[in-house]
């Protein structure tokens, strides 16, 4: 005996004709989403990143039960660097929630008994005070339930809003909730969940051990780590996201901040479609899309050729020095029409990391009388060269960058052969090498350094980070140079 609530689904379709001329037509469909009729109850599927729940498709609006647990737990920011994350659902970012417009979400937030702090949740998809924060403030060992109706389709951030709000967000308490439009989003082949965040630690980037949160750096917005999905390397190597040639990939990209805006970019791809700020406005053929902190975007593109596509925040030092780097691995048939691959290979090395200058013939090179430099002096000078030239790739502690640049610290490859190492500095190196059991395949360019600088920097490297303390002389450098 149910009344068919036709009133609830009020669709006003109006036809606008421009007054002056032309047959230009515009259809505006307006649905009062507050009155969408709800039928039945289902449990929400929640997924941890980079995965997303199955599409909503064309199911009717329902009461959707979401159960989320807050866990404060230790994790690894990068090799050897521990951090206590505060999480929604055990991951950073928190579990992905997928709903459709008109759903009534009944949200239960449970604060694990072992947690130290009270928390709550502010969902940008909520129309209501505090985005739900007011109703969800919950002490450890307790849970709170509230419900809301999803009125606007889009991709929305959720986060904790308990004092000090910035700290809760900085510790990883954020995630995404997708509200699909009536009928669902168009079908694609692959969907992934990526969320950027900036982290502030007491120690500098790479400093080992359990790193506490640093409020002062957070206020100054001096991030030590800027990462996708909560840690350095969450989306690289074996954890890279994947697709096959010819497939369409949709990325739900959020930015938890707390501070930094993301210049989201996939190297070697052009976004066919971007839902700007996660809303209805669609831009096409986009290279880099800006995602504010506390904001999101949906990007879609078809992958046409195989290879590894690097996902970055194009504020590029964040990518190569602070961790904002992920990978999309595409497998399938090459398409030489679209991309040739390497046609010819060789080494062209006009510049290394050092500053380039034009040759200056007016100044005669003075033979450097430095063979009698002390070891301490060599180490000091060598460190200067290192910081100028080698630091960006091999990093401050010689730890390298996983899957990209080999470590110099305790490096078996380095320690095995001094002359080979000098040769690489002088001449550059491409191709696969194995360092400490891991394979690297990258390019090191030839470094334009004087023989003395080479001797100094090599001595510095050999006398640092557990290497074999070789003292490299200028003569050895000359020897290697001449043997080439």
């Amino acid at each position, binding site marked *: 005996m149910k009344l068919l609530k036709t009133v609830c689904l009020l669709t006003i379709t109006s036809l606008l004709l421009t007054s002056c001329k032309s047959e230009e037509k515009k259809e505006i469909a307006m649905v009062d989403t507050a009155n969408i009729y709800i039928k039945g109850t289902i449990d929400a599927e929640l997924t941890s990143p980079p995965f997303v729940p199955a599409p909503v498709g064309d199911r009717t609006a329902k009461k959707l039960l979401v159960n989320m647990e807050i866990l404060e737990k230790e994790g690894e920011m990068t090799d050897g660097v521990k951090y206590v994350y505060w999480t929604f659902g055990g991951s950073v970012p928190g579990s992905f929630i997928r709903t459709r417009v008109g759903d009534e979400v009944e949200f239960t937030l449970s604060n694990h008994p072992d947690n130290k702090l009270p928390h709550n949740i502010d969902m940008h998809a909520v129309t209501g005070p505090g985005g739900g924060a007011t109703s969800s403030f919950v002490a450890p060992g307790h849970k709170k339930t509230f419900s809301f109706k999803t009125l606007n389709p889009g991709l929305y951030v959720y986060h904790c809003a308990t*004092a000090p709000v910035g700290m809760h967000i900085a510790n990883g308490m954020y995630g995404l909730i997708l509200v699909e439009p009536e009928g669902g989003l168009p079908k694609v082949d692959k969907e992934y969940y990526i969320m950027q965040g900036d982290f502030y630690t007491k120690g500098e980037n790479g400093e080992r051990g359990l790193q506490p949160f640093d409020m002062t750096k957070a206020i100054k917005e001096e991030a030590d780590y800027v990462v996708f999905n909560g840690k350095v390397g969450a989306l690289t190597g074996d954890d890279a996201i994947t697709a096959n040639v010819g497939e369409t990939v949709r990325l739900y990209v959020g930015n938890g901040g707390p501070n930094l805006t993301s210049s989201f970019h996939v190297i070697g791809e052009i976004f066919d479609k971007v839902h700007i700020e996660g809303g209805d406005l669609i831009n096409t053929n986009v290279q880099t899309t800006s995602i504010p902190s506390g904001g999101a975007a949906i990007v879609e593109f078809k992958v046409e050729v195989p290879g590894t596509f690097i996902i970055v925040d194009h504020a590029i030092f964040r990518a190569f020095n602070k961790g904002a780097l992920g990978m999309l691995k595409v497998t399938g048939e090459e398409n030489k029409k679209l991309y040739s691959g390497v046609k010819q290979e060789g080494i062209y090395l006009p510049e290394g990391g050092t500053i380039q200058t034009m040759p200056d013939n007016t100044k005669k090179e003075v033979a450097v009388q430095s063979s009698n430099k002390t070891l301490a002096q060599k180490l000091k000078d060598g460190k200067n060269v290192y910081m100028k030239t080698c630091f960006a790739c091999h990093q401050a502690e010689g730890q390298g960058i996983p899957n990209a640049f080999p470590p110099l610290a305790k490096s078996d490859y380095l320690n095995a052969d001094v002359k080979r190492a000098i040769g690489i500095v002088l001449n550059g190196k491409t191709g696969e090498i194995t360092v400490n059991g891991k394979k690297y395949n990258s390019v090191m360019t030839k470094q334009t350094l004087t023989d003395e600088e080479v001797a100094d920097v090599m001595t510095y490297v050999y006398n640092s980070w557990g290497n074999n303390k070789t003292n490299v002389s200028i003569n050895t450098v000359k020897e290697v140079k001449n043997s080439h």
Partner: protein
Amino acid sequence: MITNCQSKMVPIKGGNYIPLYGRDSMKVSINDFLMDVYPVTNKEYLAFIKKHPKWQRSKTIKLFVDGSYLREWKTDTTLNVNQKLKSPVTQVSWFAAKSYCESQGKRLPTVDEWEYVAMANKTMPDARKEEAYNQFILGWYEKPKTFNQTIGSTFRNYWRVYDLHGLVWEWTSDFNSVLISGESRKDVDKDSNLFCGSAAINATDLMNYAAFMRYAIRGSLKARYSMRNLGFRCVKDDKTN
């Protein structure tokens, strides 16, 4: 040794101080009082509930405790294997803590009394500006399961009181008198007198965010709640003065 001095109290000399939620005009004065040196332990609480069976888990009135009350205990009167006699008792409600203190002729400290004693480090009565002091407190937030430690395992402060920071949160008699609503951002609204001071949110120093969390946790509690990280200790007015 610890067991012997456990019920021992030390005198706290009263004075004026400005609490976190205060302004210059809101100095609070504290009278002299006595405070327990350590938080109440499992052993002591066990003795209490043997004497007062109405506070045993299965016998409590549900108005006074929630479902987590002494939940980790094996039975009404036995601890679990991983619980130590000398660890602070946790998972007790405010009602239970209050009743315990009263049974000893004591009472729960007020927020102001607790904060007043807890702002001391090892050497100074007010160390709130000391970075190391604040780092210690903040470091605790990042250490899991500190409720399993034993009493006396942190530091003895200026007043010779142990474990105010670094072990467990502690109940206070008026824990919810400084209200923090669920919406923390609202509490700094200039129109709101819930949390006096939009200044607090602008504060950049460590002291504010360490202390903020104590006010936040208190704000999230109800008197029948109990938590694994929440214990208590008692105080007594100093009648000698």
